[in-house]
């Protein structure tokens, strides 16, 4: 009996997939490997469905100087998940381009403040949709609940929660901007703000940062 008629007894068909090509409209058994695992093929990029469903966003800024972490750090690139947002932010990736030839030997990271400390910060300059932040459906209005800020002053000293990358010399002779793919390992709960900051020195005069994230109901 085929798997479509009795899911209790679902079994696959162990077969060499390279030896078959089913016609459209047929309903063959699912193909299984020799360990009875189902054989599968992805049909989109990992974040396509999220983006298609209007749930993937990007925020970028040109030629900023990323500050060194410290008390009352004045961030130029922050993501704020308000306490009542009802969503959990999933960071997808961060890119940091260069527009200057002189870098600073240092480590770049995300620094966070949470709950009361986050709320006690100064939310100076929100990003503008269609100017600095966007839906990943290019051309759509973004309906993001996690709010990007072009200027936000932390209360107290934010704490590094993620190392993004580093410059190892004052001249970066690569074409690979600092980039990190999170793949689900950095989440932004409500009531938390994260900002780009440098570890021990102010960053180069001329970074173009970009962050991509998605939002999920709590």
């Amino acid at each position, binding site marked *: 009996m085929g798997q479509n008629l009795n899911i209790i007894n679902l079994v696959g*068909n162990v077969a060499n997939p390279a030896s078959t090509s089913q016609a459209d409209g047929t309903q063959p058994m699912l193909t299984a490997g020799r360990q*009875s695992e*189902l054989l599968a093929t992805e049909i*989109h990029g990992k974040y396509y469905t999220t983006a*298609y469903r209007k749930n993937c966003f990007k925020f*970028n800024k040109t030629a900023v100087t990323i500050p060194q972490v410290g008390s009352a750090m004045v961030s130029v690139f922050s993501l704020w998940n308000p306490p009542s947002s009802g969503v959990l932010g999933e960071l997808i990736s961060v890119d940091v*381009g260069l527009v200057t030839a002189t870098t600073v030997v240092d480590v770049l990271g995300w620094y966070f403040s949470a709950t009361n400390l986050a709320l006690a910060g100064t939310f100076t300059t929100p990003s503008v949709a269609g100017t600095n932040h*966007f839906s990943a459906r*290019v051309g759509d209005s973004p309906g993001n609940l996690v709010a990007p800020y072009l200027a936000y002053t932390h209360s107290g000293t934010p704490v590094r929660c993620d190392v993004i990358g580093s410059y190892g010399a004052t001249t970066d002779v690569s074409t690979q901007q600092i980039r990190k793919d999170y793949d689900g390992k950095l989440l932004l709960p409500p009531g938390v703000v994260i900002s780009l900051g440098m570890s021990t020195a102010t960053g180069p005069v001329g970074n173009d940062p970009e962050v*991509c994230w998605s939002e999920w109901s709590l």
Partner: protein
Amino acid sequence: MAVGSEGQVVNPTTVNLPDGGGATIPPTQGKQGEYLVSEIHGKYFVAAQRKGVFTANVTAVTVPAIAATLVSVFTLWNPIGSGIIGEMIRTDVGVVLSTIVVDTIGWYASFAKNASTGTFTTPGVGLTNIFSTRTGEVPANQIQFYSAYTHVGTPVRVDIIGCFGAAALTTPGPVKLHDGTMLVMPGTAVSVAMSTTVATTSGTDLQATWGEWPFV
């Protein structure tokens, strides 16, 4: 009524079934109840096999700096009535001269009327600079490629592709794997441009790869 399991938790390293007929055990599951699967194709194989993946490339262009009425040398235009959404798969930036301009390179977009009233100067040509990824087939793309397109107003950056950190480089050109995070809606034109400074004259090869999906 409770429905039984659709699989079975087993150690797959102890199983080796013969080909032919139905498996003697249900699909295998891991200890968290997840289906165990093996991929059999690249992520974009099915779309490519079904004639839905395309590339466009140009040789030795000068990538402009972002500005009002940007004159682009590499633009993808999804017409308003195309009925499809574009899934950007990959962007490649090649270096063909040894002297580089330090800067960040990205995709810049114009929307709606600004996009449709731009000047569509030089359309791409199938099998010359637009291709099906079924190599050798005539591409039936709905998203149109232009090697010259003039924007109305100043397009906005919607994606950073990469950057050049020094005037002399030791690594290959930037590559961006979009992985579903950049979709081009109908009525949108996206062009490759630099953040602050025009790139090296005639120094860059560009390629974009995208898939097309029905969109209602």
